């Protein structure tokens, strides 16, 4: 009853009041726009710094770091690619792809188990999963090194992939679980009544409905794996297996670093992740999940 009255009121609002409301909306929106703009500057200006300095020589970076480059050294990028990236690119690609696939799939399974079932020790297992986020990687070096040698995977891709997956599972499980928890119970119930088993419900309902979070999880895992260098350096010795972070090291030294080339190398290295993120943007469309209850 109340709603009807409200609706009628809305329809009879005279035109000029509607206009006022629009102006008011814009006025109220301006602090929001200002905030966005300020934050944008805070983020974009340093990013701009990175780009222009990747075209400079080391001396120029230290000499006039905020000015535009005197000479645009595209050679920085070529050098970075030739020595720091090209040989390591494929390795990074393989390790990252494998890690993402494994992490997201295993975590999704685990998240499903943790979110849609009631069983003994559920909270305990949740803590068990989260616990992985609490270990400082440096202290795990020696035990992990021993384990990897014992398993016979030292100096292979698996020496990187398996630990990475293990360390990303906690956060990925948490994320996917939080999304799964929001799926309305009615959906499951109706599918269950239709005779679907848990696996079918998982594959046909949960996964498709939560693509955004899984995609986000993939991007986050990709970014972590692509840039990870502690394990990549310690568990792998052969040049032929090293990933990009090891390759980029070639531009750094205790006494001297070729910063221009290093920046160029890091820019190049960031591109695949950015591309991945951009491609995934189409999943970030509002309304993907709304309307599903009615359907």
């Amino acid at each position, binding site marked *: 009853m109340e709603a009807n009255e*409200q609706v009628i009121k809305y329809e009879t609002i005279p035109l000029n009041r509607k206009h006022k409301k629009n102006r008011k909306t814009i006025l*109220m929106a301006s602090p*929001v726009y200002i*905030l*966005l703009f300020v*934050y944008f500057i805070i*983020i974009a*200006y340093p*990013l701009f710094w990175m780009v222009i300095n990747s075209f400079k020589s080391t001396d120029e970076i230290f000499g006039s770091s*905020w000015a535009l480059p005197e000479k645009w050294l595209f050679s920085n990028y070529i050098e970075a690619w030739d020595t720091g990236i090209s040989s390591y690119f494929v390795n990074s690609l393989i390790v990252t792809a494998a890690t993402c696939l494994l992490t997201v799939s*295993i*975590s999704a*399974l*685990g998240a499903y*188990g*943790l979110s849609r*079932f009631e069983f003994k020790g*559920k*909270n305990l*297992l*949740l*803590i*068990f*999963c989260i*616990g992985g*986020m*609490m*270990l*400082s990687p*440096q*202290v*795990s070096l*020696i*035990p992990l090194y021993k*384990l990897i040698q014992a398993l016979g995977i030292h100096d292979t891709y698996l020496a990187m992939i398996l*630990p990475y997956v*293990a*360390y990303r*599972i906690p*956060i990925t*499980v*948490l994320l996917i679980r*939080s*999304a799964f*928890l*929001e799926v309305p119970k009615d959906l499951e119930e109706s599918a269950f009544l239709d005779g679907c*088993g*848990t696996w079918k419900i998982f594959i046909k309902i949960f996964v498709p409905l939560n693509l955004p979070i899984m995609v*986000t999880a993939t991007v*986050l895992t990709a970014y972590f794996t692509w840039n990870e260098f502690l394990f990549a350096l310690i568990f792998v010795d052969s040049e032929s297996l090293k990933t990009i972070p090891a390759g980029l090291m070639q531009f750094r030294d205790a006494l001297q670093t070729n*910063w221009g080339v290093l920046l160029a190398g*890091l820019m190049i290295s*960031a591109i695949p992740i*950015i591309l991945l*993120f951009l491609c995934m*943007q189409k999943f*970030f469309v*509002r*309304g993907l999940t*709304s309307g599903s209850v009615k359907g």
Partner: protein
Amino acid sequence: MLHGKRKITPYLYLAPCLLFLLFFVYYPIVENIRYSFFDFSAFSPSKTFVGLQNFIDLLHDKVFYIALKNNILYAVISVVCQVFGGLILAAILEAPITRLLSGFFRTVFFLPVVISITVIALLFTFIYDPQIGILNNFLSLIGLEDWTRAWLGESETAIFAVIAVSQWQSIGYIMMLFIVAIQGIPKELYEAADIDGAGGIRKFLNITVPQVKEMIFVTTLITLTGAFTVFNEPYILTGGGPGNSSDVLGTLLYHSAFFEDKMGYASTIATVILILTLMISVIQMKLFRTGKDG
């Protein structure tokens, strides 16, 4: 209530996770806890059992308290900036008025996340530079010249300068997570509120926030555990200096392990971090009553 065909179904789903975690995470954790009762160097083959001595030494170490204080500062500031700030940013970007540019902003705000810490450290060394840094230049420009200083080089400001860098990098990350969560909120809820004449802030407080409760739990957890395990930013930006003023538990651990060769002591610090973060997580789980309909 959903019941699997067999009672062990949930365990089956969890099995791959648990296997990975057991081998590659919990085996090192257990070893680590074991190590904290010994005194040894990475070079020497022998370990001397010292019982709780490492823990006692840690409690007497005044640097431990400085580091702990810094981690707590990290935690508080991170939650405020990242969770609170990230949520607001996400809500703004998902609101109708900013719909057009939201894709663009989303990408730009997320970019800092994909930049490696090496670059960010160099970048901020220049931003904070006492002479040519833009922070000091900006302050002088707006007439606040008294506030200019060597941000990374003075013991009062060093840790705050470091924390600020982490916020710069990570707000976008948390913001993305909230965006995904907000997108899962059914439009109908907002439409109903519009009809009731609710303003932006009311809608935010009464609809958005409760609907993303689970994500708030996750992001707070991520932020808090991150704050206690942080290592890269303080290490690369200040090395824990000047003195120990910007040391955190992570840098303390690293220094013990790789400079002082006290692996046992380092393990003790790691165990303490573990216990702290575990406690925080359990408290959070209880507070949020996660997994139950709020």
